[in-house]
């Protein structure tokens, strides 16, 4: 028997993911221990760490990163669970689901800018109050950039909650929740209590890795933290980036040590979370079987729906705010709407951004295409050869999401230079695959595994080989989840900033790199234009993922539910 391509797929996939992360980490490790010949650092020393520990803002920056990361993850998860527990299977749930999933495609920075304009003391909400109260000046309140990072947490929650919800929705069908819930409710348990007792314990292991990805992201996030987070001092990730960008090149050593500390901090947050999981599981064991039928059902349900709707509304209103800004003439506090309207911002930046649209989508399509082929090949390998990845292999798969980007991207840039790859379109696509692949796997694996194996058995019984079974049974039946996973991947690719900039050497500009450069000018009109263009690019694949199955199955009624 020759080596089949599917058999080699898992190994190839891991290589594509781990090679860059390992090369990048090596490139960070060296300067953290004083090695950087370009800056005449030739001796191994602990000086960069001593220097880092001597920075007076360190304890607070570390505490901030941990607190905001843990809190944002906890709130996102709690809301996701409450919404599902209280409303799964209802009309309200479907409405919320429909409102939340497109929010996935809104780039983090755009959502953060929109939120900032809503909640700032001179923002839209304040303007609504200012008119009747006759305020001429906004109140001097510390809402954005507050020292505890509360607005940063809010900004993360509105973006991470839809992601967790989507992952939950992907995992749920395999658990057949309707049957379990009906049984529990027949026994007199309230809807929420029943969900917590019979669904959640089986669901959580399925969404654990996405939760960890959210936690790691929240601890090390840079763009949202720069817009909404505190600055005196900022969270550690932002400070590391500041050191990396410091004109004093000697700061590169401190930055590398800080990047390693950030990595350690992310691991610590994950361990803390794991510890809490174990403790909670122990504490909950008795509650699960104690027979309590549930209290405050109504309150919990209202909380879930209320906060879910609120967070969808915040992102949507924020986007509308940015859209208004993109057409605004002069617009001062406390006016609710601009004094004048103008197409100028779109005329100035529209053509330039439109030109970048094509390249951005090319990179997104190629990288998510590669990721989807590798993911599908891995999942086929499971089906055909029983090569189901162990838990450890899965961890490796998520490594690019768990290791903070700024801990390995600068090192990866040097690796790219050494191989002569950097600055090319191919290199940018390759590095996008690293970040896109985990999401592709995360989105596709559950529907793939949940597909009833008896369909394949029937196909085999009818004399079809594995190839035909794949193309004629699995592909058509999985078309919708496959396209959804591809859309999630493409949206992730569209949003990549640091990897595109560092590996592309500025010579492969995309919508996102251009948008961030233009946004550094701080004009809300320009930010409105660029954020909307970015959102449109990320939303396009989602639209296609909805449209294609509808067209393909327009005369196959049984296939439409996907």
């Amino acid at each position: 028997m020759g080596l089949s391509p599917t058999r080699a797929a898992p190994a190839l996939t891991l290589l594509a993911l781990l090679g860059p992360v390992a090369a990048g980490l090596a490139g960070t490790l060296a300067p953290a221990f004083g090695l950087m010949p370009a800056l005449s650092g030739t001796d191994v020393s602990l000086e960069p760490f001593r220097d880092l520990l001597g920075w007076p803002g360190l304890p607070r920056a570390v505490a901030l990163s941990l607190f905001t990361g843990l809190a944002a993850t906890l709130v996102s998860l709690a809301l996701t669970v409450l919404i599902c527990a209280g409303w799964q299977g209802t009309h309200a749930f479907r409405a919320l689901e429909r409102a939340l999933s497109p929010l996935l495609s809104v780039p983090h920075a755009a959502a953060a800018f929109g939120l900032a304009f809503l909640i700032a003391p001179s923002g839209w909400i304040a303007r609504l109050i200012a008119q009747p109260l006759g305020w001429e000046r906004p109140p001097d309140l510390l809402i954005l950039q507050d020292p505890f990072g509360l607005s940063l947490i809010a900004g993360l929650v509105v973006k991470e909650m839809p992601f967790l919800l989507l992952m939950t929705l992907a995992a749920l069908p395999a658990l057949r929740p309707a049957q379990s819930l009906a049984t529990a409710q027949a026994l007199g348990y309230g809807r929420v209590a029943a969900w917590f007792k019979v669904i959640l314990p089986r669901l959580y292991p399925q969404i654990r890795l996405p939760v960890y990805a959210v936690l790691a992201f929240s601890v090390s996030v840079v763009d949202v933290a720069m817009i909404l987070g505190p600055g005196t001092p900022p969270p550690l990730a932002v400070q590391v980036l500041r050191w990396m960008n410091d004109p004093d090149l000697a700061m590169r050593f401190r930055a590398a040590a800080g990047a390693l500390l950030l990595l350690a901090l992310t691991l610590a947050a994950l361990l803390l979370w794991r510890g809490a999981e174990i403790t909670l599981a122990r504490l909950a064991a008795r509650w699960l079987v104690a027979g309590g039928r549930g209290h405050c059902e109504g309150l919990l349900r209202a909380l879930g729906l209320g906060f879910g709707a609120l967070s969808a509304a915040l992102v949507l209103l924020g986007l509308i705010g940015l859209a208004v800004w993109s057409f605004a003439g002069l617009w001062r506090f406390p006016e609710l709407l601009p004094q004048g309207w103008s197409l100028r911002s779109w005329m100035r930046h529209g053509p330039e951004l439109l030109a970048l649209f094509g390249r951005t989508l090319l990179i997104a399509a190629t990288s998510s295409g590669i990721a989807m082929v590798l993911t599908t090949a891995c999942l086929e390998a499971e089906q055909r050869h029983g090569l189901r990845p162990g838990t450890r292999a899965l961890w490796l798969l998520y490594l690019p999401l768990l290791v903070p980007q700024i801990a390995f991207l600068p090192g990866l840039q040097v690796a790219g230079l050494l191989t002569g790859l950097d600055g090319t379109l191919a290199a940018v696509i390759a590095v996008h695959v690293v970040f896109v692949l985990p999401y592709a796997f995360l989105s596709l694996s559950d529907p793939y595994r949940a597909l009833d194996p008896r369909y394949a058995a029937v196909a085999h019984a009818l004399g079809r080989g594995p190839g035909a079974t794949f193309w004629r049974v699995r592909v058509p039946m999985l078309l919708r989840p496959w396209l959804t996973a591809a859309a999630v991947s493409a949206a992730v690719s569209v949003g990549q900033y640091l990897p595109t900039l560092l590996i592309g050497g500025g010579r492969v500009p995309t919508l996102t790199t251009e948008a961030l450069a233009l946004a550094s000018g701080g004009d809300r009109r320009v930010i409105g234009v660029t954020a909307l263009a970015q959102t449109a690019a990320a939303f396009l694949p989602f639209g296609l993922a909805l449209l294609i199955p509808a067209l393909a199955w327009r005369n196959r009624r049984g296939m439409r539910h996907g």
Partner: protein
Amino acid sequence: MIRRPMRNWLPFGLAAALTVTAPTLAFAEADPADWNAVLVEAKGQTVYWNAWGGAENVNAFIDWMGELAQENYGVTLEHVKLSDTAEAVSRVLAEKSAGKDAGGAIDLIWINGENFAAMKRQGLLFGPWSEALPNWQLTDPEANAALTADFTVPTEGLESPWGMAQLVFYHDTARLPRPPRSMAALAEWAEQNPGRFTYPQPPDFLGSTFLKQALIELTPDTDALSQPVEEADYASATAPLWDWLDALTPNLWRQGKAYPQNAQRMIQLVADSEIDIGFEFNPNAASNAIANFQLPDTVRSFVLEGGSLGNASFVAIPYNANAKAGAMVIANLLLSPQAQARMASPDELGFGTVLAMDRLSDDQVRLFDEIPVGIATLTPEELGPTLPEPHPSWMEKLEEDWTSRYGVAP
């Protein structure tokens, strides 16, 4: 020594599957003294100019430069838009770390101050070349010291100037008719109007500039500032500054618990009526913001009594630049009267010119005479004297101390 062979076998993901681009041929280094040879070499080259891309008037000016360069010299200009100049510095450093000593990704950088000082110190710049440019003859470095010293660090021909900037304050006359015009008056005004003033958080360039401006006005020993900080009595030179800031901070916007990130954010704060006074390093900034609908047309500019800090913007060529000849052609073109007059126009950039009027022909001078003045732009006379920058070591020390005093406290 081990760098070269590593290129071939470094296992890097999908490297093997993708074609490796051939290394660029090594040209003889372009020599600006032989300008005709430079022009010949430059023809057909593509120059990647890494410049901050956050201002549309800057982007438009660079686009226009590209057309001019293509038409006149056959040089293609690509603007690599940065959100921070340090990105370009990091890039050159990464290339040096990887041993890429030729064919680098950056040909020209818009650079200034600390970034220049750092690159010069680390030997990351090509040169000297700038004083051999034909149009250098149109400047008068003896009359304008800012052309040969960037933050007091001698440029030594490693960078070429292209625009003059000066610290200028602005205010909305409809809300604040008579702004305070000295640091002492500013602190007093802030005490009566708490929460109506702030400055960008150092080490943001403009925030640090504000600290230096205050230091110059408050220090008892101005002469010490031109020396490296190690050679001066730092504690007694800066004590009045810290006393002044201690008094000012509780009266700042958000009581100094948060600061705007940069100059652009400060324009937004003035537009949102969160603060009453802003400042910028471009004398034309307020006029630009009015033209962009960012500020109302009641905004006017002012400078502090006794003058304000000023310096020149430069372009530099990295040591490993791929198109050095093309980069020099662009730098020379930036010094041409045609480009300088366009740059100086408030409708374009509004930077001050680096050329000396007495070295231009009558036709060339006319280009500048025809420039209209923006509604909120001060005339050169109103701008008043330019104060020299302190030695860059002061800025580093000030930023460090500011951060431990005000930047890391909740």
